């Protein structure tokens, strides 16, 4: 089994741990927290793409998590930490609605259904006023303290978010190398072949969905406490919490371990900058750019940045070792761009029959 490359894990983690000590500016800390939240959601989303399943419904799980913790805290006085636990459970349950009737749908159809699910939940959140407070939303009280996950400075938020994100990454790595991971990766290549080997593919996909949804719910819950407010249009925003993670994942490299992290770290500050630059009269231009970027990236670099780096590293490695295969240390997968296109071609023709 491929060894995990320790330097690539320890060094970034160490950097991340000490970073806040060098950051006085609360705004930079804020961006860092945002990066961590998005990294977490993207990593969670990416677990489904281990299995080749593209979900655009993660905003649903994010929103369920956010609302669960807020409702429990504000309306029922439940401690936010317990609320986060509940958020995970409710988000996973929320994914069952999608899973059971819809996982049988193939590729694009499942994806569209997930997108519809987000919209449906958004409408329900607006409508179910007694539970969700409708369009007004829910504001969590600013009572301070670790018990309430509420602080004046951004630093504690950063460390909590970091904890969550590292946990998410660890879970993601663990799954990838586990039986579930093997089966997911096989399903991603050829579901029929995997079934003929005795694997119950629907259970495998369901497993990845439940875990992915639960993890996303945790981040949604944390974000709700960080932002102090939840409301339907923000929490159940497909653009922010469904498409954005997918965009991050695609840019970094879908289905790989490092891809979502790389993608989120790059795209989150970029997105923030775009949003701030194009506010007011140019409202909408920032997301226009997202759309254009998505089209261009998919066209030019379907493997994402991680693939790109690996290709470069390989070429460098071949020069140094005279023909042997050199891998970028952070890569935990094989799979070279030319061949993935080959397999993708085969996929395309199979679908095209």
């Amino acid at each position, binding site marked *: *089994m491929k060894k995990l490359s320790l330097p690539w894990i320890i060094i970034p983690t160490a950097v991340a741990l000490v970073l806040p000590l060098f950051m006085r500016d609360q705004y930079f800390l804020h961006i860092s927290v945002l990066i961590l939240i998005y990294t977490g959601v993207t990593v969670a989303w990416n677990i489904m793409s281990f299995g080749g399943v593209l979900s655009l419904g993660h905003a649903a799980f994010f929103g369920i998590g956010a609302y669960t913790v807020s409702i429990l805290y504000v309306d029922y006085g439940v401690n936010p930490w317990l609320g986060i636990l509940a958020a995970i459970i409710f988000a996973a349950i929320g994914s069952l609605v999608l899973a059971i009737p819809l996982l049988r749908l193939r590729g694009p159809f499942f994806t569209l259904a997930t997108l519809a699910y987000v919209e449906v939940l958004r409408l329900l959140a607006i409508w179910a006023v007694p539970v969700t407070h409708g369009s007004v939303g829910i504001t969590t009280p600013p009572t301070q303290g670790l018990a309430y996950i509420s602080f004046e400075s951004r630093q504690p938020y950063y460390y909590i978010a970091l904890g969550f994100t590292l946990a998410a990454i660890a879970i993601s790595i663990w799954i990838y190398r586990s*039986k579930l991971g*093997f089966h997911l990766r*096989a399903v991603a290549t*050829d579901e029929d072949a995997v079934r003929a080997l*005795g*694997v119950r593919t629907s259970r495998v996909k369901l497993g990845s969905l439940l875990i992915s949804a639960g993890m996303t719910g945790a981040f949604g819950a944390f974000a709700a406490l960080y932002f102090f407010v939840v409301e339907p249009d923000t929490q159940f925003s497909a653009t922010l919490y469904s498409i954005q993670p997918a965009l991050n994942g695609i840019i970094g490299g879908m*289905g790989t371990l490092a891809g979502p992290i790389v993608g989120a770290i790059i795209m989150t500050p970029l997105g923030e900058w775009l949003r701030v630059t194009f506010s007011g009269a140019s409202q909408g231009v920032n997301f226009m750019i997202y759309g254009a970027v998505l089209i261009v990236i998919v066209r030019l670099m379907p493997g994402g940045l991680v693939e790109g780096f690996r290709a470069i590293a390989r070429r460098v490695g071949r020069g140094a070792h005279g023909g042997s295969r050199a891998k970028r240390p952070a890569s935990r997968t*094989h799979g070279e761009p030319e061949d993935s296109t*080959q397999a993708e071609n085969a996929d395309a023709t199979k679908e095209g029959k």
Partner: protein
Amino acid sequence: METPLLSVDNVTKRFGGIQAVGGVSLELGHQEIIGIIGPNGAGKTSFFNLLSGMFIPDSGKVIFDGKDITGTDPASRARMGVGRTFQIVRPFKGMNVAENVMVPLLVNDSSVSKAHRKALDLLGELGISHLAETPTEALTLAQRKRVEVARALATEPKLLLLDEVLAGLNSREAVDVLPFVTTVRDRGVSILMIEHIVSAVMEVSDRMLVLDHGKVLAEGDPQIVIKDPKVIEAYLGSDEEE
């Protein structure tokens, strides 16, 4: 008279306006190899799909190891001992050969390290352990075919459905892969193989079945079957293209 391992009773399958399989019956015993040949479009792969569970027959029965599996889903059939390879070999992306073989092994046992060991053992028995660490993208076609068979074997099947395992191989490669088939049989597995290369199939089959237009044209001893005038006519009268 021993009960057959596989008993197919008059299965039919229609797709839209086409009767792909129009009433095929067959019986397969233990450690028997039956070769299935027939011109293109004869319904061979559709027949296999009925046996492996990808399609459910419109009528007829499939009885395996004493149990009626006519309506059973593919994964369950695989667990019961019906293994299958595909015409278009698709090794799992991003995995090396050993990991490919681990996928079916992990079905019954969650331990990744144990599965790895078992995979290496199996590859060793089949004489391809040197390929264990090779990424599947780097394999030649002949090697991929053997990995495909190895993978199917990892499910410990009693019956193996080989769908054109020799397709795309040149005659030298085919000579390499064919002994694989008998090795598999010697391990106690019955085999149904679809093939276009009639000579190869004749060499290893105990019996042969000829399909044409979804029906059985002839069945029995390979030497006798190929001399059957109906069979010759079916082949001569059809296109030979893949």
